């Protein structure tokens, strides 16, 4: 019974998270590294984005390497019809880790999840 409860709480033994979540078909897939070394990005990407967001909104500095639209541009994939898949769709770059870690992504309640073709952010 205890084991059953444990299985219920902890979930089935699904395939474990792979170390590389960059999705094939995105620009990022072709690159060696993100705008910072991967180990830094894994820990500090929220800090980078948050910092960038403040200087963008308050001081109007745009197009820096830590911008969220940069993330979206580089990590969005296209489907067979050539349409973009949102970066927060299941299995996509942002969602796969956040889903695994049980962390919500607050960015995309407001920000575009695919490149929208307008430069700026």
């Amino acid at each position, binding site marked *: 019974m205890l084991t059953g409860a444990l299985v219920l709480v902890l979930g089935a033994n699904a395939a474990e998270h792979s170390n590389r979540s960059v999705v094939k078909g995105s620009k990022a897939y072709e*690159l*060696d*590294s*993100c*705008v*910072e*070394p991967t*180990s*830094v990005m894994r*820990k*500090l990407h929220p*800090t*980078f984005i948050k*910092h960038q*967001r*403040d*200087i*963008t*909104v*308050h*001081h*109007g*500095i*745009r*197009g*820096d*390497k830590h911008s969220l*639209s*940069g993330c*979206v541009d*580089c990590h969005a994939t296209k489907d067979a019809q050539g349409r973009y898949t949102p970066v927060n769709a299941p299995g996509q770059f942002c969602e796969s880790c956040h889903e695994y870690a049980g962390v919500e992504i607050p960015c995309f*309640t*407001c*920000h*575009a999840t695919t*490149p*929208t073709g*307008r*430069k*700026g*952010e």
Partner: protein
Amino acid sequence: MSQDIDQERRQFVSVAGLAAAATVVAPGAFLLDGSAEAGSRREPAVDKVRYGMFIDTTKCADGCTECVTACEKENGIDLLRMPEGADPEEWDRQRPRWMRTVKVKDRLTGRVSNLPMMCQHCEHPPCVDVCPTGASFRRADGIVMVDRHICIGCRYCMMACPYKARSFIHENVDQQLSIAPRGKGCVESCNFCVHRRDNGENTTACQDACSHGAIVFGDLNDSNSEVSKVLREKDNTQLRADLKLNTSVRYCGI
């Protein structure tokens, strides 16, 4: 607020410095660095500039909504859809509007004017004074806008604004433009197409769209700018001048 941010920036720099020191920086790690678009602003907005607008209501045509349509397209407002099950009439009261047309008639003389209304970008904006978190703020270049990352959705700014320029997002939003993020539960308003400012463009969407030449936008602090010249030449007024807010949007012909 800006002090806070500077402080945060310093902290951040030290964190990033540590992180960089602790890691061997791989060659090619900064691939995307500096490849920003031409005209992109890398310097902060400064108070040498004060953006402003002149609206000549005598040129404004009755029933024309070119500016409003262009504004909604530019800023992704046209991407919003009525939530399922909403009452269209009620929804119309709840959907955001950055810009609207108004037709006013003088009570005594009966003179009629048409004009577009939007955020007047006050020098002393009441919305900024009342905002509890500092989300409503005035940029160095005079643009009054909302930092939606720290807006808690209290709507006090909407209570305080004498021009009813602000809108609250009443519903979930599933489509946005990268240049105009938008989400449920925050307040927003006209920001003089701030993305165009930051990218070094000289116009606003409404100005570009106006086929009557009724809207002139530019730097009020530059005496050679078109908007400064026209403001010197033509008689103009502020809306609710009695409140002494020193608005950046000036009207002629009302």
